[in-house]
């Protein structure tokens, strides 16, 4: 086993997801199969190979620090599931 059910539950918490018992069982078995398949990468000698992080090598993309129009308050709030006044409303954070 590459990954056990309690680890799946921990990763779910990190990913802000929750599962029923049955779902967690199913995910554990599916993730195990996928992770076992990935073991083949250990056969590749990567000593001294720098990790590739970009498909096309690019330097930092700088731009002039000019002020340009932004969305504005109304458009920003337009898709909010719950907005009041100028704010996004969420459940109470501090007891």
């Amino acid at each position: 086993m590459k990954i056990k059910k309690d680890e799946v539950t921990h990763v779910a918490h990190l990913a802000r997801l929750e599962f029923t018992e049955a779902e967690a069982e199913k995910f554990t078995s599916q993730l195990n199969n996928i992770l076992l398949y990935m073991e083949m990468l250990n056969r590749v000698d990567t000593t001294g190979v720098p990790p590739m992080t970009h498909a096309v090598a690019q330097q930092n993309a700088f731009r002039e620090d000019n002020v340009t129009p932004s969305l504005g308050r109304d458009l920003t709030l337009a898709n909010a599931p719950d907005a009041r006044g100028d704010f996004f409303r969420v459940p109470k954070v501090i007891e």
Partner: protein
Amino acid sequence: MELNQLTIHELQEKIRSGKTTATEIVQSVFRRIDAVEKAIHAYILLTREAALAEADRADEAIRKGDIRTLTGIPVALKDLLCTRGVTTTCASRILHDFVPPYDATVVEKLRDAGAVFTGKTNMDEFAMGSSTETSWFGITRNPWDLERIPGGSSGGSAAAVAADACIAAIGSDTGGSIRQPAALCGVVGMKPTYGRVSRYGLVAFASSLDQIGPFTKDVEDCAILMNVIAGYDPRESTSVPAEVPDYRQYLARGIDGWTVGIPKEYFIEGIDPEVMTAVRKAIAVVEGLGARCIEISLPHTAYCLAVYYIVAPAEASSNLARYDGAKYGFRAPDSRGLLDMYKKSRSAGFGAEVKRRIMLGTYVLSSGYYDAYYKKASQVRALIKRDFDEAFQRCDVILTPTTPTPAFRIGEKTDDPLHMYLSDIFTISTNLAGIPGISVPCGFTQGGLPIGVQFLTGHFEEAKLIQIAATYEKNANLEKRRPTL
């Protein structure tokens, strides 16, 4: 022939010569949509009213002599391209009512070129899938056989073009999501070089792999759309300020004297024999046109899938962290505090495949596993790219099958994620290396399912792909068929 069956370049000619109007074209496309949409379900949303109004404006412009590249041409958009004021769902419950306040750069460019948008096409949720079966809005069916999948993730765009339910469409390709459905639906699909087309306004899946590209009925139309959508965008920091050639100039140049690489790792056991036969025939056609075909090796091919399913979910888990139910998208009711709201909204908002990939990505990036998975995968990715760099020292273009099999049956692979992932085995390497690729129809199975051949080349050399694909298409003498719906 009905207007909706024609290509962009055929319609351009009819518009310029006054033989038809934008309104007639758009009406013809919507008549077809009304006839076939129940059977194939290529669209999540149809924007008929807006399209007819746009067509009206296009006709007004035509009367004034203002005829642009795509004036009056109906184009469908994959539902992960932001469209101002028009719902953009990514085929997910979590974005089911999201109305973007701005247009993606690609949408803006198409609009400026005169295109008329027919609607937003179906896809796998967040572009994660190979069959368009994970959409929250239901599956799309392959116009060539309604019991089969159209491919994915851009299955709606491919099916719409194949069924003449639009003239051309836009999709996105993270591991084959344009080329694979193009092959399975018998149309042309191109994934440009990473950085060639701006991703501004594309809902992100895996940011180092995602690229936007066209679905068309022939290679000339592909060149026309690439002329419109390619180019640097100051709003997208990975878009590359490289010069964009006029791709139409490459349609009739031929491939005499070219060297075409045939990678032995892509002609292996397990490929459907009818696919193999069709692709071997394509090799013979290319040779007959004056190209020399040589065997090459891409030694790290066997590792592409494993690398991809570490890199893509890792990036996805980070990109999709933004869907928290706070500022936009679905929020689960009745939560007990903020953390509970996040968990409930995300768990109810995402489908199973998206959650599987978020889990996988979170795991491979988590403390203690990063080096073993993500770092290792990124190193092997560098070796995969090196394989291509070395291959392109010896050949101009690489030729492969686009997919190992023709379209499979609906439901055939939904219970086995790894089996599903294998249907992208020939397209994934392209995205890992960042190079461009195109899929072009190369025949049919005895059962009447389309087969595609794929051409690949070096960074920013899409013109070469247009050149070989157009030359092949013109000389392959394939039977002209349309799906019977």
